[in-house]
């Protein structure tokens, strides 16, 4: 049975790690929910407005497109390194692969994702 100890320890630790953190903070947190206590800072100027600083969503769209085309290079690298030995079949495969991505880009373009709003 000792073999199994490792598995249990793993789970127990995982559980304690996850649940324990929440539980501890719940147990030891002081509960004085006065408006003052709920302020981010107890002294100084009262905060005004949201503390969130937001990017324009346009950035997100670019980021999304970038991520996708960035990942594409993983495959292009692997293919490029072995280009010579892989031969025509891999070349055709890669053309299809890029074509599919281009359709995606075409779609994004058509939908207006590339225009700055």
């Amino acid at each position: 049975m000792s073999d199994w100890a490792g598995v249990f320890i793993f789970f127990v630790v995982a559980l304690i790690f996850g649940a324990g953190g929440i539980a501890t903070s719940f147990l030891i947190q002081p509960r004085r929910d006065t408006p003052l206590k709920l302020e981010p800072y107890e002294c100084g100027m009262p905060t005004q407005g949201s503390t969130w600083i937001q990017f324009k969503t346009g950035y997100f769209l670019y980021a999304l497109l970038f991520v996708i085309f960035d990942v594409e290079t993983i495959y292009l690298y692997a293919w490029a390194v072995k280009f010579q030995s892989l031969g025509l079949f891999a070349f055709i495969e890669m053309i299809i692969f890029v074509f599919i991505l281009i359709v995606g880009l075409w779609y994004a373009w058509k939908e207006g994702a590339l225009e700055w709003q």
Partner: protein
Amino acid sequence: MLTISLTHYVVLSALLFSIGLFGVLTKRNAVAVLICIEIMLNAVNINLVAFSKYITPIDFTGQIFSLFVITVAAAEVGIGLAIIIAIYRNKLSVNLDDFDWLKW
């Protein structure tokens, strides 16, 4: 002298996985949860690469697998961010605690 063995990688991966899990459980921000899931996936990648190196050093099965995992993770992040934008437009919040319309 300490040599780095497979065990170290596996332990690292397990730790990373647990950290990611902890984040998923505790973070209130949807983007942060998404990031934590990525951490879990990266734990998987570490496993894959380590196993590939130590157990099947001749073929690169694990490494190729990890490439696919990375790709899929990227797609997941892409979709996740897009949804988060949409949900922000709906609710003006990305706090997961606010997403409990659907229950019971």
